[in-house]
């Protein structure tokens, strides 16, 4: 099967700054094909030593353990730099991935981006 027939949509929708907060909005389906791209984006964000990083998952329809691993790595990086790290807007299926891996209490998870920004 030709890889050209299969396209994974750009998973990083936007990276925006709100005062000392950085919001990285993800979209689509996160698996091992695109998790490396997200990891690189986090590494770039943390080089600027933000006070808070918010991962907006409102438009994420699927995430596997590759995506979860990137988030855990980013959380550790945030803790090392005393940066607040928040997740916003995950749908029920995404929340269940956190719960299955018993990580729902490790992350600060907000229902929507407005709550995460406040």
């Amino acid at each position, binding site marked *: 099967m030709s*890889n050209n027939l299969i396209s994974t949509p750009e998973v990083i929708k936007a990276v925006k700054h709100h005062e000392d907060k950085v919001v990285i909005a993800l979209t689509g389906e996160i698996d091992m094909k695109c998790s490396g791209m997200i990891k690189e984006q986090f590494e770039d964000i943390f080089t600027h030593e933000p006070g808070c990083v918010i991962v907006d998952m409102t438009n994420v329809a699927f995430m596997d*353990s590759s995506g979860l691993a990137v988030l855990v790595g980013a959380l*550790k990086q945030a803790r090392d730099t005393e940066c607040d790290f928040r997740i916003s807007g995950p749908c029920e299926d995404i929340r269940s991935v956190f719960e299955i891996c018993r990580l729902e209490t490790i992350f600060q998870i907000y229902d929507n981006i407005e709550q995460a920004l406040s």
Partner: protein
Amino acid sequence: METEKYNNMDSIELNISAEPENLSVARAVVRQAASITGVRESETESVTLALVEALTNVIRHSYDGPCKKPININFSKINCHDNRSALEITVRDHGKQVDPDSIKGRDLEDIKPGGVGVHIIKTVMDHTEYNKAGDCGMQLRMLKYID
């Protein structure tokens, strides 16, 4: 586990190469297979997650990374010995063979990235079993009850 395949239900075969680009294809097919066989809509995404974790493990561990080697996936509706029906998914690779008993989820108390794929598969599916497949490779058989 004793099972019997439905005579009036064709299996769905999906053969892909061990490349991350093909995970989206597998997701599309398993969602369709779950719908056809009657898996609850609320459980379709967890079955999808289990399959993606299984395929990711094959790519990472059986084949030591993305490659053109094959992964054979089969979806069937089966009748179990207790008269329950289930969606059966088998994932067969042609890579390294390991002791099936050595395939376990890791301790989740240790918060670190990665290594939770087997834990996810065993949590969301109703039955899982790993076996050596012939002379090379492993086969994972997973069941999700429908009733």
